[in-house]
């Protein structure tokens, strides 16, 4: 069976398990779902009504497949707090979260790649040691702490940037950008350290290979050797880590959206959890997990595009 088909089958299986696991988490937890949603002051009739609506008397697996069936057709059920369809709530908030994560990733890569290249130019040199310590420092900074420190510096002490709130692009690009700088910096400034360290260690390993010595014998300047020969073979682990870190970013986004009051998917989830809105939580967690799995699948595909060795093994066997 060709590789691509095997991977698609694997993707479907993982997605199936992920959604099942989400559904189970929300349903097998202690406490009756209806009571949890309506709260223990609710009258027995309300509880009975809700149970009927949700069809809670049917076995969980059957309910799961119903939920999955409707989910595939875009209906993630209705929130029991405000009756708004969950899917619609997610779609409305998706652009904010996506913009946040994309900007954070751009900042992270924008710092990580040049810094890694510069520090590898003279391993153990001054720049290498400074960047390593800086990376070390940022790595030890939790994003919620960094967010507070950035707000304290840029909003409280010097009123340069808004501390909270989100201005959609429709109301002016610059305002939107201004409102997103601090949140994306909060995520990006930590993310770059992980990417830099991975790229740096791979570059150092590649630079010991014979084909780098051969490039130097050809008379290539150190920078040309780094950029034309060392960078590409060293970028594969970086790409894999990019995929895996998306999960970390989503988690981080939840916090950053909370700190900066950005109306994103993360904050939607938090709200759902606080309000005991199980249906909303169920839909959001499933959406996030599915998104994460799909992104990682695409990153895996990217791998094959960049590395001819992988491409040949995967698409010729």
């Amino acid at each position, binding site marked *: 069976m*060709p*590789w691509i088909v095997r991977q698609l089958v694997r993707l479907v299986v993982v997605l199936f398990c992920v959604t099942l696991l989400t559904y189970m988490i929300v349903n097998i937890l202690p406490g009756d779902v209806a009571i949890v949603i309506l709260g223990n002051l609710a009258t027995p009739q309300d509880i009975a009504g809700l149970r009927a609506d949700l069809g809670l008397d049917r076995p969980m697996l059957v309910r799961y497949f119903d939920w999955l069936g409707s989910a595939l057709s875009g209906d993630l059920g209705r929130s029991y707090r405000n009756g708004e369809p969950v899917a619609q709530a997610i779609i409305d908030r998706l652009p904010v979260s996506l913009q946040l994560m994309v900007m954070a990733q751009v900042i992270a890569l924008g710092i990580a790649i040049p810094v890694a290249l510069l520090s590898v130019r003279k391993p153990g040199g001054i720049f290498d040691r400074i960047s390593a310590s800086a990376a070390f420092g940022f790595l030890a900074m939790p994003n919620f702490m960094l967010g507070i420190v950035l707000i304290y510096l840029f909003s409280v002490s010097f009123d340069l940037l808004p501390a909270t709130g989100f201005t959609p692009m429709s109301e002016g690009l610059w305002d939107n950008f201004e409102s997103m700088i601090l949140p994306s910096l909060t995520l990006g400034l930590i993310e770059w350290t992980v990417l830099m360290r991975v790229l740096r260690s791979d570059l150092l390993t590649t630079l010991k290979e014979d084909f780098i010595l051969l490039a130097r014998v050809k008379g290539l300047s150190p920078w040309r050797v780094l950029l034309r020969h060392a960078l590409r073979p060293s970028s594969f682990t970086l790409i894999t880590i990019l995929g895996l870190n998306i999960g970390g970013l989503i988690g981080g986004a939840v916090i950053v959206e909370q700190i900066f009051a950005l109306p994103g998917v993360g904050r939607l989830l938090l709200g759902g959890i606080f309000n005991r809105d199980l249906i909303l939580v169920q839909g959001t967690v499933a959406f996030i997990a599915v998104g994460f799995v799909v992104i990682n699948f695409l990153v895996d595909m990217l791998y094959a595009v960049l590395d001819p060795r992988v491409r040949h*093994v995967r698409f010729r*066997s």
Partner: protein
Amino acid sequence: MSDLLAIQNLTVEYPVGGGRHVHAVSDVTLSVKQGETLGLVGESGSGKSSLARALLQLPPPKGGAVLFEGQDLTKLGGKALRAVRPRLQMIFQDPIASLNPRRKVAEIIAEPLIVSGVSDAAERTRRVRAVMEAVGLDPDLVWNRRPHEFSGGQCQRIAIARALVLEPSLIVCDEPVSALDVSIRAQIINLLEDMKARFGLTLLFIAHDLAVVKSVSDRVAVMYLGRLCEVADSESLFTTPAHPYTAALMAAIPEPDPDVPLGDTKLKPGDPPSPLDPPSGCRFRTRCPHAQPRCTDEVPPLRQIAPGREVACHFPLVG
């Protein structure tokens, strides 16, 4: 001399994904006589290491039988197989990788005794000290030290001691000197010869260096791409090679003597084919100077051309 080990129609294949297989060893029949050293020669990809591991059922072969002291190892289950193992030992190419870096030398050599149930600690210590001295290691000096404190040659001595401590009848030596420096090789070769004489061992000596194989072997078998080409006693094989591949190997070896002219391998240009899809018929035909159409259609059987000499070639150079 009766056969201590008889390999019949041994076949070893590794799946490589996408339904394709590496044909490492194909239908090899070979026997090792009690007390002899059988040399097994071949280039990388010839399947000699795969054959060695299949003998020890690590992993078991895909097909064929391995008769050791009358028992077919491929038929034996866990416990029964483990009971036979002490008499069939192995030493490896990379001496340092064959020793657990976290354990002391004494523990490494004593482990086989513990595993085979020698519970009396004093008895174990006595036998470990004896086998250490036998391989030229000073027990008091090395007892509590760890493998990283030793050179390649000394690590191989420790590995040999570990193989000897259970008094095996057959030792499979998988390229035991290839990873060692030239000056150390002779030490280990002499040690193996001494141990064989002293403990009445039988050796299966695997290597790609013909000169080393000739120095230690009574009989020699030559393998190419998973198949046996030729089996003969050492003297006649090296003086009058019957298979074209053996002749080419001999001609290709650079003699450490400037006056010996470089031999002509007469090989067709091009690289050895891959074991993933070996050529039909005789697998050497793509490089053989004497290849005929018959070699493409018909796999040459291993047949006897003289007492104690077998060759798998339609047009052997001798007989």
